[in-house]
């Protein structure tokens, strides 16, 4: 009885928390998305106008496609960087493994704005990279100044620590003796990695991918400070609706679309993965 009560409290509190701080705001956003704004006033007449605008106004579709491509590239690059880093920490980190992983989290001790502005200073016209190049008499690298490449660098910088940590945690629970077994049976190191290490840690990789992909989709600061005139992404355009232009209802509809796209991406990833093959036990035993 006491166990059931403790369970109810332990699960009930976060459930209430989620309902109050996530479900309710999301529902209010859904409602708002079916209203409209006129001269900064919310008009409560139910209509699909905002969704029609988002579907037919090419600009918003462009922002979404730009964001999807950006999120895909940034997540893929982050995974490509994070895997060897995490693997190296596991293999060679010894008793300092945790220390190495925590070192990646150091940037999180500062605010996101500060990190992005620091990066702007690094990549900008008077930044470290271009400053050194110009001091050496070379031309500055224009492709890292206020471009989508600069945005991508910023986003990788922002979200790489999360991906490294998740893949590291996944590898931490991995039994390396399985690789030895594969090698004993004649597998090369590459084949052992492709057939044993990679699939058995795929779930961690996918979580890392999702934890990078989803925030990239709604990224605001990096494109705003690093992206330049062609760098407007979906999150930045959405933030504009709630800030300067005061077109809240359209912004709410953009938020709903973003949520749906995010869920769809997660579902799409999930349906193509055999979770049990990856060693994931969160679905219970059959």
């Amino acid at each position, binding site marked *: 009885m006491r166990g059931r009560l403790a369970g109810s409290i332990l699960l009930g509190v976060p459930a209430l928390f989620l309902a109050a701080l996530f479900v309710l705001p999301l529902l209010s956003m859904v409602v708002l998305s079916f209203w409209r*704004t006129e*001269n900064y006033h919310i008009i409560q007449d139910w209509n699909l106008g905002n969704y029609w605008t988002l579907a037919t*106004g090419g*600009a918003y579709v462009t922002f979404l496609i730009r964001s999807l491509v950006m999120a895909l590239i940034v997540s893929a690059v982050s995974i490509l960087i994070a895997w060897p880093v995490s693997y190296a920490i596991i293999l060679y980190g010894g008793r300092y493994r945790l220390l190495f992983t925590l070192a990646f989290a150091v940037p999180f001790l500062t605010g996101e704005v500060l990190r992005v502005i620091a990066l702007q200073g690094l990549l900008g016209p008077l930044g470290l990279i271009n400053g050194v190049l110009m001091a050496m008499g070379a031309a500055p690298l224009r492709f890292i100044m206020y471009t989508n490449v600069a945005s991508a660098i910023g986003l990788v910088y922002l979200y790489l620590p999360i991906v490294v940590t998740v893949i590291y945690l996944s590898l931490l629970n991995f039994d390396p003796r399985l690789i030895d077994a594969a090698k004993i049976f004649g597998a090369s190191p590459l084949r052992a990695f492709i057939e044993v290490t990679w699939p058995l840690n795929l779930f961690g990789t996918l979580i890392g991918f999702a934890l990078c992909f989803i925030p990239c989709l709604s990224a605001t600061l990096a494109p705003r400070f690093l992206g330049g*005139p062609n760098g407007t992404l979906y999150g930045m355009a959405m933030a*504009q609706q709630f*800030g300067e232009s005061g*077109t809240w209802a*359209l912004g709410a509809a953009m938020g709903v679309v973003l949520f749906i796209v995010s869920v769809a991406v997660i579902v799409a990833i999930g349906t193509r993965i055999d979770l049990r093959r990856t060693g994931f036990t969160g679905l219970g035993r059959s």
Partner: protein
Amino acid sequence: MKPHEPNRSARGLDRRQLLKTIAAGTTAAIAAPYIRPASAAPTTLRALMWEGYVLPDVIAAFEEKNKLKFAPTFFDGNSEAYNKLRVGGTKDFDLVQADGFWPSLYFREKLIRTVDYGKMPSTKNLFPVFQPEKYKLLTDEKTGVHFGVPFCWGSYGITYNKNEMPPEKAASIECMFDPAFSGRLSTSARFEENIALAGILVATKMGTINKPRPDGKSFNPYHLTDEELAGVEKLLIEQKKLLLTRYQDNATLAQLLESGTIVAAPEFAQVYRQLLNKKAKGEITTDFAHTLIPKEGGLGWVDTWLVSYGVPDGPTLDVCQAFIDTMTSQETMKKIAMASGCSTTIDIRSLSTPEEQTLYLMDRTNELSDMYMFDQPSSPEKWERVWSRMQAA
């Protein structure tokens, strides 16, 4: 307790009542600091304002003198502040800042209240052009009551590198759309001013700027026709290829100009003044100049102090007006000009050197009447579409 209700105290305290009492007590404890009786002097003075106008030493002295805490909340643009006020913000803020036509909108919508110039002696030092009888944007046409005090003013002029751009070119808005400076131009990220400035150029080219307007009033770049807006969109899309970036803050713009990465950008003249100071100290060698009003017409703004509609008559209003009086005193205004780099509505010539008088345009306040004041876009929805299409193009 009404006569027909049961006397619960006679039955003792049941569990439900106990829970209700605890809940009510907790709510009251949490809400207490935010609830103030109308007649009591405030313990906190809450302001919705631009960050650049915070002067820590002046505010600390005001806090000490009035035994209260000054709690500012910052915003970046009028529409953001307007939205914050409309969502119940008149209860959350005592003092508000806005510019151009926005205060009159606030007053019409009962977001701000009237003020008494008699309680703010510093207003006697306003330049003539900003006295209520001349500057009409803070006076209700029907009743003649005043609802704000002008504070700082400026334009959205063009700061340019004189070594790279000839002054005759920089005298026109066209310089910001000139392919000869491709990749070496920048504008701010403010969508309203970008559209309005382009609107002046488009209306000039279309010849509609001096023709009768659909609303019967004179030309206002914040009230563009659909044809003019279409022209603006086309122009801004063409301009996008020429821009290095849209700067988010003055520090970035200063870097871009100082490094020679860009040669011109519209701004509020703060960066221009910073650069001129650097030049005077020998820290930079580049010559910069600022076009206050381009030949086609320019945008201007007057920042104002307003009092929220939630402020009742009595001690709170007195404190609000005392604060405005402090902020508009000549000594404070001199500090504000130096710290934020803006021109003041208060005559501080007696406290300024001849160089400062030139730099802060103290003898050019009359030019304000030739500028188009910052205003609310006639249709934020249409303007938002124009801006989004341009960004996506």
